[in-house]
């Protein structure tokens, strides 16, 4: 059983209502819709940490247009209904000026019509489904902006790398049964098949799937040249551990998160040769990243991952927009975002195209000798 919309939201909301009453001074409230419980909670925690670090740094430097920023976090459990409810609460009770979120593509897609109706800008920073780009900007939703690359662009980068040595001809696919997994599959299939690589129909797993052994046994007999993995959080953890146990030597690829949670698996050497395309790695040394990693580690005791980096960048970007708009009014923030030219920590400049999609750099990672190695940075 998951804990439900009505109840969870109501409680959080009650606390929120109380909170806003107490803080009679008027800080600018920025909403964060993020999975704080459930299988993706670890990722949501990092996203929240990144956002908190940004708010803290901005406030220490005097805030935006002289006002303090305040972060209001709502749990979306990574599912569409909770996602919609979290946005409703942030808007009607939190009185937010802008929303950042929602980590999982399906939750983001369910929030988009709500913020459009309420006319509150939404900055998407980790959801990668290509559908979000299609719908935003000239696609119809003028209030949604995305600063991370979509799976469309990530797939192009990954494909270029995968086909370089010409050994990979057939790729199997294991994805989450959500907009993330299905969107990732469509994007990767389109790009790879154009280059003569066959991509299977894909197996899609419901969230909280425990047992992947049957799928892995099938892989052992199908023998594809690579398995593309588009799973998330605890499910990915289960998958990688069972992949190790299966003794398969088929290299993994796709969007595998090699963060510290997977350390045991990475160190065991079982996923040597695995490749992954990600918007961020703490090992990147360009721009101000080294200093950012240090600040983050000092505050939270862990190194930042893609979620924390993106959460941080999104808040920074919104604060920049507020400063340039000289107002915390949602409409003015939206206009300022449209003309943004924001230098992110990695040194790339975030500008939105007509679909409100920014084109930051992304990174190809590979496991070599039980270690994560950065194989290249490319522009999306």
């Amino acid at each position, binding site marked *: *059983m998951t*804990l439900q919309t009505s109840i969870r939201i109501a409680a959080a909301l009650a606390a929120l209502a109380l909170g806003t009453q107490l803080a009679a001074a008027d800080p600018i409230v920025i909403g964060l819709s993020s999975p704080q419980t459930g299988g993706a909670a670890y990722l949501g925690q990092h996203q929240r940490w990144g956002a908190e670090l940004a708010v803290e740094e901005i406030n220490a430097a005097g805030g935006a247009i002289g006002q303090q920023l305040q972060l209001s976090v709502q749990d979306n459990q990574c599912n569409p209904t909770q996602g919609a409810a979290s946005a409703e609460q942030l808007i009607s009770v939190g009185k937010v000026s802008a929303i950042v979120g929602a980590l999982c593509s399906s939750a983001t897609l369910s929030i988009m019509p709500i913020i459009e109706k309420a006319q509150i800008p939404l900055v998407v920073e980790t959801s990668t489904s290509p559908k979000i780009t299609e719908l935003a900007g000239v696609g119809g939703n003028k209030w949604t902006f995305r600063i991370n690359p979509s799976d469309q662009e990530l797939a192009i980068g990954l494909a270029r790398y995968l086909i370089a040595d010409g050994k990979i001809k057939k790729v199997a696919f294991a994805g989450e049964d959500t907009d993330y997994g299905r969107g990732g599959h469509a994007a990767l299939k389109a790009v790879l098949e154009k280059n003569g690589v066959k991509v299977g129909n894909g197996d899609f797993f419901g969230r909280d799937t*425990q047992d992947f052994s*049957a*799928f892995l*046994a099938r892989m*052992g*007999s199908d023998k594809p040249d690579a398995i593309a993995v588009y799973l998330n959080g605890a499910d990915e953890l289960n998958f990688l551990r069972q992949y190790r*146990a299966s*003794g398969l030597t088929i290299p993994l690829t796709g969007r595998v998160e090699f963060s510290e949670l997977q350390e045991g698996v990475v160190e065991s050497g079982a996923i040597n040769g695995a490749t992954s395309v990600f918007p961020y790695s703490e090992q990147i040394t360009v721009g101000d990243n080294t200093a950012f990693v240090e600040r983050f580690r000092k505050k939270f005791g862990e190194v930042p991952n893609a979620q924390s980096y993106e959460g941080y960048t999104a808040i920074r970007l919104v604060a920049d927009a507020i400063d340039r708009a000289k107002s915390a009014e949602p409409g003015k923030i939206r206009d300022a975002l449209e003309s943004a030219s924001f230098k992110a920590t990695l040194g790339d400049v975030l500008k939105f195209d007509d679909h409100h999609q920014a084109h930051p750099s992304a990174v190809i990672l590979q496991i070599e000798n039980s270690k994560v190695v950065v194989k290249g940075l490319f522009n999306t």
Partner: protein
Amino acid sequence: MLVSTLILNGLVMGAIYALIGVGLSLIFGVLEIVNFAHGQIYTLGALALALLVGHFGFGFLPAAFVSALGVAAFGYILYVLFLQHIRKGEFERGIILTLGIGIVVQNALIYFYGATPQIVDTEFSFRDINFLGLRVEMIKAIAVGFAIVSITALHLVLTRTRFGMAIRALSQNREAALVVGMRPEVVAGHAVVIGTALAGLAGAVLAPVFTVHPLMGAPILFKAFAIVIIGGLGHLPGAVVASLIIGVSESLAGGLGSASLQDAAVFLVMIAMLQFRPMGLFGKGVRI
């Protein structure tokens, strides 16, 4: 090769299902209570092991024993406080009561433990063994060992001891137990302790195989219901056979078909069974 791997995987899962299904079937047979809290009892075993191994530095084997014992003690408390007050024929009352217990246990676990899935690493993690040329995770092999030993032990107790005869008599007819010279409420108490201990053990031995979280019991509960129905209500060997059938069908459906077929397998087996053998594999005449 693929099929044999799938069947082996299926038998491994089936053996664990058997621990859960047999306990549920035993409690139903003796008390005529469908235990809706059985999934949470299983969760309790898994979280207890996670706590003992992760926090108190227990080895896997002692932790599994202690978890099963602790869960059994909890089962006994449930029996004394609640289950023994349910009379025969109060079928709905038993369901609602155990459902309430399940709600309390699950949410208490979320409150104290958090809903985030955790990994349990034991001294047997990241090791594998070779079984007839097929690779099996050592932790899974140990889990199967536990299942075989405890179900065999239960079988011996039920067939070779006076207490076992009382249990079997009671599950057929209340007065018969008195003939054997045992008080029905004592026998029923023992049945609950054994049933919950088995579920707790199942949770404990599965904890290092998959991620552990307070909501893990809900999907298992329905599989356990299906096992009890397919095996024949209250029929323990039937429950074991049904568990293996479900484990293997899931594995084959997932390996030869797709992930969603794997999810649907338990429904398909149940529908097929009700179609052809409405009393279950070894039905003893309870109309289902």
